[in-house]
């Protein structure tokens, strides 16, 4: 037992070193901008850069719209599948997994060819339309995570009884979904939302190929032209990812644990 514990510690320590050394190195590098001493100059330069503020703001806006679109698409569908059409479940699950199978770059390639300015649906004909297509693309990429989160949330509540109770009280479908189902799966929806946010905020491929001024292409551009700022941006990006994941962990503690309690 003692030797096995030694090996376990060793494996853990080597693994931890692989993960922490790059993080420490990045942080150290980001402090090196001023010659001969450590300073937060790189962060000051980055945070003061108007292009940073613009692209970051743009990506946050896109992320919010993506989350709204995702919720609007996934919650009613997952609810309806659970309530009325369980036979469609395998098909819907298969579709929600497709974005993991088809690489993002292929999906956006298809968009560019299908929705160009000469097509019947010219999304790419205007900047607003391209923004919309970007949001749609991100909602597609986030579909597997959003659907799984919401479906897990629905499993923990008694959808049928809640629906019948709401119907007896005279609620229509929109009221049932917005005021009965959504509040009950809010924690699940929020974890899906934060995961979506973490995915969207620094995404590069779609934003770059659709030529939108998002945070991901900005990061790439800074990386190609500057020395210390990229390290500072990497630290900031890691902090954002860490923040999103922590929120999801905290939310998980509030989520109801057992499904369909007896009685």
């Amino acid at each position, binding site marked *: 037992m003692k030797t096995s514990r030694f090996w376990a510690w060793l494996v853990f320590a080597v*693994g931890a070193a692989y*993960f922490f*050394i*790059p993080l420490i190195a990045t942080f150290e590098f980001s402090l090196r901008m001023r010659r001969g001493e450590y300073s937060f100059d790189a962060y000051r330069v980055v945070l003061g850069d108007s292009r940073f503020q613009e692209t970051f703001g743009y990506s946050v806006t896109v992320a919010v719209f993506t989350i709204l679109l995702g919720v609007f698409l996934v919650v009613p569908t997952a609810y309806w599948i659970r309530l009325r059409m369980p036979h469609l479940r395998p098909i*819907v699950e298969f579709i929600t997994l497709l974005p993991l199978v*088809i690489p993002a770059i292929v999906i956006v390639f298809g968009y560019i060819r*299908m929705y160009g300015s000469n097509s019947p649906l010219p999304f790419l004909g205007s900047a607003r339309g391209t923004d919309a297509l970007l949001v749609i693309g991100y909602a597609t990429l986030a579909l597997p995570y959003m659907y799984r989160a919401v479906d897990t949330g629905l499993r923990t509540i008694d959808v049928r009884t809640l629906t019948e109770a709401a119907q007896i009280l005279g609620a229509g479908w929109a009221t049932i979904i917005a005021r009965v189902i959504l509040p009950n799966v809010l924690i699940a929806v929020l974890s899906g939302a934060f995961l979506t946010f*973490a995915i969207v905020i620094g995404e590069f491929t779609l934003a770059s190929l659709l030529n939108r001024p998002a945070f991901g292409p900005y990061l790439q551009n800074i990386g190609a032209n500057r020395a210390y700022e990229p390290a500072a941006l990497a630290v900031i990006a890691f902090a954002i990812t860490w923040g999103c994941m922590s929120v999801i962990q905290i939310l998980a503690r509030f989520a109801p644990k057992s499904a369909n309690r007896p009685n």
Partner: protein
Amino acid sequence: MTQASISDPAIAARSAPPDATRGFRLPTHWLGVAPFFIFALMFLILPTLYLVIGAFQNDQGEYTLDNIRQLFLDASIRDAYWVSIKISFWSATIGAFIGLAMAIAIVRGGLPSWVRSSTMTFSGVASNFAGVPLAFAFLATLGRLGLVTVLLRGIGIDIYALGFNVLTSWGLIIVYLFFQIPLMIVIITPAIDGLKREWGEAAATLGATTWQYWRMVVIPVLWPSFLGTVILLFANSFGAIATAYAFTGSSLNIVPIKLYAQIRGDVLHNPHLGYALAFGMIVVTGLANIFYIWFRTRSERWLK
């Protein structure tokens, strides 16, 4: 509250339970899922089909296999697929073995419980920390001025003089491990939890050595989920582009970067060859996922 009574005719007429009215409202049944299916069709299935069909057509719109044949004949494309597959294979395999070792260490190694919970939390973060910032982190670590490079030079080991360069496919494999290992840990830990203590005790009662217990119980139970996850990691890195692009620009010849350049400016001088390139990516990741699902169903037999 009297208003909410079912016997109130106004309310009863407003919204009857759908079951009672199913016979004559059948099509509205589908309205609930229609937005989802229309969305999936328009923004997932049709754009993909458009490329797939385009891969089998020529400029005149006639059906042909020339584009697919060209994928194998064009040395630069063949090379790109080969490098991509090599990078994905090694990052998946190495990531899987290290991830498995770490998962076994935190589940079975008798380490304190905070080690396990903090590893799982960190894995959740690191498996989502990919893309452009990850490339920056490794340039700051193993680049020519990176911390590790500088520290090693300080003790007399110049890794760049020894032929190491982070901007190569092996450098990229090291970088990809940063999200591959955590992903392996996240997925395989429940499978290791599924190894019941009783099996170890039963094996010991029957006189098995530790080695026999591993060879005849642990490995056969774990290998489907292990292989399945390796394949998932493979697909995961095969489609990734942002890290590689931020890392090496367009100098590294891998399929996603080639496709990126093709979308940007038709570098292959043949749009339909571009579709074929995309089709090839779908085939590789699609095959990988079919194997993943197959292994997954095999592994679920043991992990109930």
